[in-house]
């Protein structure tokens, strides 16, 4: 049949639809119209299966209906709805035996393999979309968000490389002469090329002069052995965190155990005035709560700047957590100045998001105290006083009192080590759904101030008890499954229908918390002592308690949702609106909305696997 008439432009309904669909929206003008004429339309009933035996291979786009992609052994890999597409030939290469099963009657647009491949080879952006569909789409979204920022610059760009070095047997007087000649405040002690210690001006002052040691004393006697150090790959952010955490001013940089450079606090501060280190530094110098408030006032503006500079959300959270830690530490310092030194060793704990280093603005305070067993009742009063001062100070600084009263001021969260053991035993042996929810926060804990060893002991005890108790794990699992991701039966994002937050969804409650809780559950059950969620996920994959694939997917989903939440807060700061975790998906760009759907779907499947794994213990 010969038909001479040129092709009609009027397949507008099909073309319009495609143009609103990923990734056809990236094709240049006219290209969609051209390929429409190569397409076929089919209608298939619920239950219809496409697999490797399907004669026609190519790209199938759902015009209406829904499909599930399942692996050879029936595992659900993906669920697609209107506007989404799949190419079985590509999926089969990654995942032999994969099939697509319709779960609703579907109208499907079909682009034959030849045309599909042609588009992929011609248009890079179109092609990228199909590089391992979906989970990798999300992967790319989070990875490509990283943009250069001064905090992420490797320390090699800032460190001094003309090192002043000495040996363990050199007399200190000789070293002091060398250091003053070279006008440096520290020297590295080497054994051959290996870094074995560090000596600073302050060491010479306090450990030699003040101790009235003879000038011939060998360096080995006064150096700080095995000093904290970083490798070349570390970023300025890592360095600043390590230094602020340990109150160090000199940080050796090491490659294969050989010293290659040294970094000082002044190097860091001179690098940038408006960065978080500077804030932390200033906080540690403030003498009163009101002065600290002044420093903290600028944080929202800094958050805006970091966000604009493309600092990834997990790093921003890291910074904000470091700031909370600094505030807490400074408040404890000020309190100790007034109350006198602590009578016995203790650990000041933070719980929840601060412990996980996942804070954002408007975090409340969640803290506790572990006190050494030797404390007398009199000593306990000192800690009560400390708790009140610090907690009040935190509240004044904007870290409001915890509504659930998870604070060191509450005797429940201020105990001797033995008391913590008893508490943990009690939580794990006799619990109800409410108590599980209340105490689950305590499984994310970290020392902010004091003896880390105390915290370690409590944490090990917790892990031991939870690992041994599958019924308690099941109770945690039930708690995890309570908040479901906002995906409706038609796989659309479900928003709130009315109230103050009409048309929005709570990204923290419905997305972030489920991921955090699922990860916590898995980490506890596996006896993993990491607290940060991303680190927990990495460790779960390393110890083979979770497949690398699932771990990566959850990490990507978490990073993405954190990024969206950061963006929401940044927008709210800019608009002067009150901070919230509510997000209107309609206001997101189409790609972000699709990615959000991907992220929520990953949460959904992670919850399903929790249900399967921990079901034995469930009632």
């Amino acid at each position: 049949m010969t038909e001479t008439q040129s092709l009609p432009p009027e397949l507008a309904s099909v073309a319009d639809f495609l143009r609103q669909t990923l990734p056809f929206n990236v094709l240049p003008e006219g290209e969609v119209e051209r390929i429409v004429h190569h397409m076929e339309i089919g209608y298939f009933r619920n239950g219809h299966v496409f697999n490797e035996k399907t004669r026609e291979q190519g790209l199938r786009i759902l015009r209406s209906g829904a499909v599930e992609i399942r692996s050879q052994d029936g595992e659900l890999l993906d669920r697609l709805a209107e506007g989404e597409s799949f190419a079985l030939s590509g999926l089969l290469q990654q995942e032999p035996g994969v099939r697509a099963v319709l779960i609703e009657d579907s109208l499907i647009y079909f682009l034959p393999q030849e045309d599909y491949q042609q588009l992929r080879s011609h248009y890079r952006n179109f092609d990228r979309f199909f590089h391992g569909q979906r989970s990798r789409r999300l992967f790319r979204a989070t990875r490509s968000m990283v943009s250069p920022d001064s905090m992420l610059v490797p320390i090699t760009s800032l460190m001094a490389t003309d090192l002043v070095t000495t040996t363990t047997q050199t007399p200190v007087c000789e070293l002091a002469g060398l250091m003053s000649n070279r006008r440096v405040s520290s020297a590295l002690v080497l054994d051959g090329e290996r870094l074995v210690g560090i000596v600073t001006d302050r060491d010479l002052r306090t450990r030699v002069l003040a101790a009235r040691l003879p000038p011939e004393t060998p360096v080995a006697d006064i150096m700080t052995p095995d000093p904290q150090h970083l490798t070349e790959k570390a970023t300025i952010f890592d360095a600043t965190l390590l230094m602020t955490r340990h109150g160090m001013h000199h940080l050796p940089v090491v490659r294969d155990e050989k010293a290659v450079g040294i970094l000082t606090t002044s190097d860091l501060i001179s690098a940038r005035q408006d960065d978080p280190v500077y804030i932390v530094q200033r906080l540690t110098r403030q003498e009163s709560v009101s002065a600290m408030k002044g420093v903290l006032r600028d944080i929202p503006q800094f958050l805006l700047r970091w966000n604009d500079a493309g600092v990834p959300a997990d790093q921003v959270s890291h910074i904000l957590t470091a700031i909370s830690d600094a505030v807490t530490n400074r408040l404890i310092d000020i309190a100790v100045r007034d109350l006198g030194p602590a009578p016995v060793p203790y650990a000041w704990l933070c719980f929840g998001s601060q412990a996980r280093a996942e804070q954002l603005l408007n975090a409340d305070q969640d803290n506790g105290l572990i006190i050494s067993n030797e404390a007398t009742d009199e000593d306990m009063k000192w800690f009560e006083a400390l708790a009140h001062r610090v907690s009040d100070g935190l509240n004044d600084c904007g870290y409001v009192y915890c509504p659930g009263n998870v604070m060191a001021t509450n005797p429940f969260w201020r105990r001797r080590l033995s008391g913590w053991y008893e508490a943990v035993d009690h939580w794990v042996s006799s619990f109800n759904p409410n108590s599980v929810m209340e105490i689950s926060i305590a499984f994310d804990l970290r020392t902010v101030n004091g003896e880390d060893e105390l915290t370690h002991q409590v944490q090990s005890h917790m892990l031991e008890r939870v690992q041994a108790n599958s019924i308690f794990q099941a109770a945690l699992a039930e708690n995890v499954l309570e908040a479901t991701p906002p995906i409706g039966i038609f796989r659309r994002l479900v928003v709130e229908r009315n109230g103050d937050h009409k048309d929005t969804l709570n990204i923290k409650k419905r997305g972030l918390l489920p991921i955090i809780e699922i990860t916590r559950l898995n980490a506890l059950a596996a006896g993993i002592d990491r607290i940060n969620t991303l680190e927990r996920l990495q460790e779960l994959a390393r110890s083979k308690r979770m497949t690398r694939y699932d771990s990566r997917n959850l990490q990507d989903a978490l990073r993405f949702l954190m990024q969206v939440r950061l963006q929401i807060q940044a927008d709210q700061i800019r608009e002067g609106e009150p901070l919230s975790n509510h997000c209107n998906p309609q206001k997101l760009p189409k790609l972000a909305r699709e990615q959000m759907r991907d992220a929520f779907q990953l949460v959904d499947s992670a919850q399903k696997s929790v249900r399967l794994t921990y079901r034995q213990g469930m009632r």
Partner: protein
Amino acid sequence: MWLTRLRRHWARHRYARHPFPEPALQKLLDMPWPAGKQPWNEASWLAVDLETTGLDPRTGYVISIGWVAIEGGSIQLNTARHLLIDSRNLVGDSATIHHIRDSDRSEGVDLPAALRMLARALNGRIALMHHSPLDTGFLRSALKEQFGFDWFHPTADTLELEKKRLFQREQNMPRHALRLNTCRERYGLPDSQAHNALEDALATAELFLAWANHYGSPGPKVRDCLTSRP
């Protein structure tokens, strides 16, 4: 159906000695009647829609024709055509209903050429329409007027098929239940932006696929689809 076949038979007989001067139309006459027991998805179909002025072929005109073919059970978009008919004496308000502007009209093809193209597309295919009497009436009248040709073609009507299905299921039929978009809705098909002959033809073709796929195993045969109206 038998009446259409009989009339077609007469027409064939009439032109048997002297081939019809229009080869495209003669081919339509030569086309064998489709086998009734053939499964629907092995037959070829052409969904056709006309936009016209008014509802009466004696006073109205064809403004545009759109069509698209179904082969092997799926719609082949490379067969889609949309022809605007160059006609100088358009009257009535259909032009406003159908968003056809004067400028569109002048770019059209003339009616005989359009009919020849349609005839070629119809060759070997069963016509498919939603509410066929109207479109068939206009086509038959145009072919008679332009070529003196009596057009009787195997035809399926989605409106009629859907009506039959609803009656079988003893559903009471609400008003507008048989409108194209209402029918589509019952199968979960997206709302169609009507009022362009090609898009209506496409919407009809999609409805037909949905109807056939819901027919029940093993699916309808050609004879289950053909309309009995002449």
